[in-house]
């Protein structure tokens, strides 16, 4: 009797622990994407001419993308497909290879951009190239915007 209760309790705790881990990973990757939003706001401000170009801030934006992309590669384990209001579509796990390649490309191009950016003109060149990675991934692997 006690063994049965203990077993059931252990399973319940285990299940809870497992789902808590899923939600935590989903929360972490949502936070990474939020930092991307901030970097996008900074960078687009320069390209739009809404803010005076600042080389340090420009490099920081690309660094945010590079670091975030590297972290994201570890934040899509197989047990994080649902819950936590994740917007990642199941196809990201079905085509995990391609999905990871896109993240790696994003990381690589962002790292290169940090070095390549020297002034406003070179920033505009790099901006489109790096930001293209967002759409390339979202169009296939993210829930469409409502």
């Amino acid at each position: 009797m006690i063994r049965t209760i203990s077993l059931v309790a252990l399973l319940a705790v285990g299940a809870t622990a497992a789902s808590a881990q899923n939600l935590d990973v989903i929360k972490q990757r949502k936070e990474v994407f939020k930092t991307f939003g901030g970097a996008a706001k900074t960078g687009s401000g320069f390209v739009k001419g809404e803010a005076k170009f600042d080389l340090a801030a420009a490099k920081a934006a690309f660094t945010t993308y590079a670091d975030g992309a590297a972290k994201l590669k570890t934040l899509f384990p197989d047990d994080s497909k649902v819950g936590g209001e994740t917007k990642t579509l199941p196809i990201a796990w079905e085509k995990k290879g391609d999905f990871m390649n896109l993240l790696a490309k994003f990381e690589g191009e962002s790292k290169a951009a940090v070095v390549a950016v020297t002034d406003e003109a070179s920033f505009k060149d790099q901006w489109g190239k790096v930001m293209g990675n967002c759409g390339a991934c979202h169009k296939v692997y993210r829930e469409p915007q409502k």
Partner: protein
Amino acid sequence: MRAWDLPTRVFHWTLVLLVLSAYLSFRFSERLGDPTLFWHRLNGYAILILVVWRLGWGFWGSSTSRFSGFIKWPHRAAGYGLRLAQGRAPHYLGHNPLGAYMILALLAVLSAQGMLGLLAEEHNQTTWGPLYFLIPEERRAAVTGWHGRLFYYGLLVLVGLHILVNVLYTFIRKDPLIPAMITGRKPAANGAEGYADADEATLRPRPLMAALLWLAASAAIVLGLIKAFGGKLIY
């Protein structure tokens, strides 16, 4: 017999290509090496220019292109629709009364779609339309969402219906609408039946010159208005 003048036909098929191109240049932008939607934006400008052109041609084009010639009151269009369902609708040289409303709907949706594009901002802030700043920041995602939804639930639906009806008319009703929009000609009105609107289209004077001059003016109007509102055409 002459049904459609050359400028109207060139307008029609150029618009088909531009709408297709506008979609492809967005959907495959990254693969085409154009993440900031340079070509999509130019497509949008071209579509807006052509819509303005067609609106003007509706007043000073050849007879079958003029709005006064083919737009009937809704009850007349409904009457035509009823007779069509009963298999006893007359034939028209130009747009039939129901087709007229499809034309107006397509022009309206194309205008709206183009204008929403001018105001849109890509959700990652990778790129934006020339007049994005006219929309308050907190409303931009909503406006851009309409640009997407109007394409899928508005334009695509109308285009699909337009193609379907033209195919049905051409192959089932034996009314050669599609060849007519290519060659500009329709068979002569047969005997007592005749065409309900006119036996033959009358060209306006110097149609090609007028079309080209009005095209230049349409471009000046569209691009000029964007610049007048403070937009940068290319950035």
